[in-house]
């Protein structure tokens, strides 16, 4: 901690002296230009919800290389993995297949979904973000014109544009335990058509997790990803491909002592958007996921009815087809958006070794939504917004259908320095088809989760300072993460942000968040605190970043500190070297994986592990 203290003091000293090295007038103009012309200024929709913004400048300063580097800093629900080692921030560590379907992910305004498996976060939660310009995270259900399925939090990723990133880039990273990443990208604009291709390969050798046996749990992975787009003013086409072969930590082992725990995923995403007039837009997308799973234990596995004994090898294929048509127009002071969205999730096939092709009676879920949203200009500075959405979810076999009704009422005020917004909403979520069908506790007819919420946000901003306070009150009925689902769950969340920009070279970002969950079974009220302090300084050709993320939960009563530090040297305009350390104190937040004694069904001492490895990396980046 002494080293960390010295680094923070040194960064503040740099910050205090920042103006010595830069000319005031031009620096001011450049800073103003950067702020007003950041690409995020063109994509932010204040009415989507409460925004946490990671601009390109900030991502570069943080030296964020994966989405995990960003998600580790979000308030209250920071990045977490589940017992299969996949990104799952809402995971309670239990045996549920996946818990983060209420967090939805979009790239260039198109949702990435795994359909049958749920949110795209499973595959994309820790992807390489070299192709990314900026990231917008919105808390609370987003405006209805953006989402097909309901969400609590939406992550909007926007890719780089050749207008600002033309040409090629090669990046090579070598990290602890032999981990390495290679990325090559090229983008350009030719006769009004922009294109970009980004290829990357990551071999990640993660820290092992002791489980009391001679074979500690592994979560290593090998991932190849491709991101391609072609777009012009009216049309956009994306192709994304991810192949990830990973060790799945505890996997389907009751007591987290698997003999074999591996998974191989191939994920394809295609989408096409067309603006065929000033008001109309159509969008189509296709997602396909093929999963090969190998699990083995010396006792029966965690699968329904103990059907597959001690070994399990499955090949699952599922496809998702999404389409939407939206219309926007302005009538007087009414800004109207309306449209319809549809999605079909299909379990194409399930092959089980020893059994063969396994016919599942439940293999299709379809969603059809209609929505309408009015944003009414109350005055020059005020806006009232009302959104309504109805979704009909139909399932084949004997599974029951759902009617989901959502409503959101909001008020927004803004002037040159102050802004305020507040929302009152009611939203309903259906559990994902995979959990519904394959969860150990069989949830065929589980009712939708209903959430009622009231949120507020007050912000002040000047040229150098931005201060923001957000508060959320939520009441949930039939909360999916609440095992007994008898009582309602209530929570209160408050987040405060402070960003200080001294000049283009020196910045401070701070966040403090507090959450209180009421009447949790066997626990009572639970308080969670977290926050961060980020300092970034540039001096001549060197950029220094220090970020300290703090987490405290009344559950384990331990303060967790996750310190990331990096120094980059711009050797020339085209070549740079970066040395980065992550979780340097080895005290980053932890989570539990529950273990069950197979002999008597009782809970064993859970495994405690951190999703963040202690890691040092060196990167060479070359532009051509």
């Amino acid at each position, binding site marked *: 901690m002494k080293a960390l203290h010295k680094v923070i003091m040194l960064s503040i000293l740099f910050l205090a002296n920042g103006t010595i090295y*830069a000319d005031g007038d031009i620096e001011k103009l*450049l800073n103003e*230009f950067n702020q*007003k012309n950041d690409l995020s200024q063109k994509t932010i*929709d204040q009415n989507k919800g409460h925004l946490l913004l990671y601009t390109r400048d900030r991502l570069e300063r943080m030296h964020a290389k994966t989405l995990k580097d960003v998600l580790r800093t979000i308030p209250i629900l920071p990045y977490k993995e589940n017992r299969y080692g996949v990104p799952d921030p809402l995971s309670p560590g239990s045996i549920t297949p996946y818990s983060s379907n209420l967090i939805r992910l979009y790239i260039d305004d198109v949702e990435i979904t795994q359909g049958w498996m749920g949110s795209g976060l499973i595959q994309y939660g820790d992807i390489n973000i070299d192709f990314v310009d900026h990231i917008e995270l919105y808390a609370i259900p987003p405006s209805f014109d953006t989402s097909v399925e309901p969400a609590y939090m939406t992550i909007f990723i926007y890719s780089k544009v050749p*207008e*600002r990133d033309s040409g090629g880039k090669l990046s090579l990273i070598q990290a602890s335990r032999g981990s390495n990443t290679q990325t090559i990208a090229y983008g350009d604009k030719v006769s009004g058509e922009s294109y970009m291709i980004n290829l990357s390969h990551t071999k990640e050798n993660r820290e092992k997790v002791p489980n009391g046996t001679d074979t500690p749990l592994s979560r290593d992975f090998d991932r190849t990803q491709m991101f391609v787009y072609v777009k012009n003013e009216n049309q956009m086409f994306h192709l994304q491909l991810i192949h990830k072969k990973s060790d799945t930590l505890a996997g389907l082992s009751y007591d987290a002592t698997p003999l074999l725990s591996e998974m191989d995923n191939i994920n394809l995403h295609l989408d096409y958007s067309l603006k065929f007039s000033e008001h109309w*837009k159509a969008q189509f997308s296709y997602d396909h996921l093929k999963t090969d799973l190998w699990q083995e234990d010396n006792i029966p596995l965690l699968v329904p009815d103990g059907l597959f004994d001690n070994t399990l090898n499955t090949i699952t294929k599922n496809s998702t087809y999404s389409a939407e048509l939206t219309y926007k127009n302005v009538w007087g002071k009414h*800004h109207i958006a309306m449209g319809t969205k549809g999605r079909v999730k299909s379990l194409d096939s399930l092959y089980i070794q020893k059994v063969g092709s396994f016919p599942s009676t439940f293999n299709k879920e379809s969603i059809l939504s209609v929505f309408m949203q009015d*944003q009414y200009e109350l005055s020059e500075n005020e806006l009232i917004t009302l959104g309504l959405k109805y979704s009909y979810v139909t399932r084949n076999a004997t599974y029951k259908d759902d009617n989901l009704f959502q409503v959101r009422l909001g008020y927004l005020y803004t002037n040159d320095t102050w802004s305020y917004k507040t929302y009152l909403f009611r939203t309903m979520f259906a559990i994902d088809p995979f959990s519904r069908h394959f969860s150990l506790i069989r949830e065929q007819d589980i009712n939708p989760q209903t959430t009622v919420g009231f949120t507020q946000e007050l912000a002040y901003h000047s040229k150098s300072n931005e201060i923001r306070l957000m508060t959320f009150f939520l009441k949930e009925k039939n909360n999916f993460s609440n095992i007994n689902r008898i009582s309602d769950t209530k929570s209160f969340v408050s987040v405060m942000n402070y960003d200080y920009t001294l000049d283009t070279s020196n910045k401070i970002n701070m966040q403090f968040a507090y959450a209180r969950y009421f009447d949790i079974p066997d626990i009572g009220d639970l308080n969670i605190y977290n926050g961060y302090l980020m300092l970034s300084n540039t001096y001549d050709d060197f950029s220094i970043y220090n970020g300290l993320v703090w987490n405290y939960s009344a559950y384990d009563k331990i303060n967790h500190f996750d310190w990331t530090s990096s120094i980059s040297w711009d050797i020339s305009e085209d070549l740079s070297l970066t040395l980065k350390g992550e979780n340097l104190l080895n005290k980053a937040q932890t989570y539990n994986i529950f273990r069950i004694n197979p002999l008597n069904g009782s809970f064993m001492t859970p495994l405690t592990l951190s999703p963040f490895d202690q890691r040092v990396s060196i990167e060479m980046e070359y532009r051509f």
Partner: protein
Amino acid sequence: MKKIFLILLLYYSHLYALDTKSTLNIYHEIFSSLVGEKSVSVYTKNKELRHAFQSSKKIVLSDNVENSTIVVVSSKAELIALKKDFLENNANPIMFTTDYRLLQESNNIVGAFYWKKGRSQLLFIKPRLDKYNIHLAPKYKPFVIDEL
């Protein structure tokens, strides 16, 4: 009213449009440092810049190279076409770019204002400025280099 328009931004608007005020502020500064005059004639094919420059009282948009004092070039295709234009019209305006790669490719371009890692960068090359007998104010020292 402007604030509410920002909130109501329709997604069909042009994604890469520049903010006029901040764009004019920085380009007024750059151009006046290059020519030392309050008003300057500029030729550019860059749509976003043309849109921003239309609101300026100090920048006069020119439709041809020979009548311009400064040419702002943004693509390789433009650069090739301009070279031909210069030869045919015996023109010799000051060349400036919004793309660092073009600064590398052409020795006739005196400077660039471009994006790198989400931050705008301003760069002038001294020998190329000297060719035009341009002497920048001392405050530009951090932005002037001798060679690429």
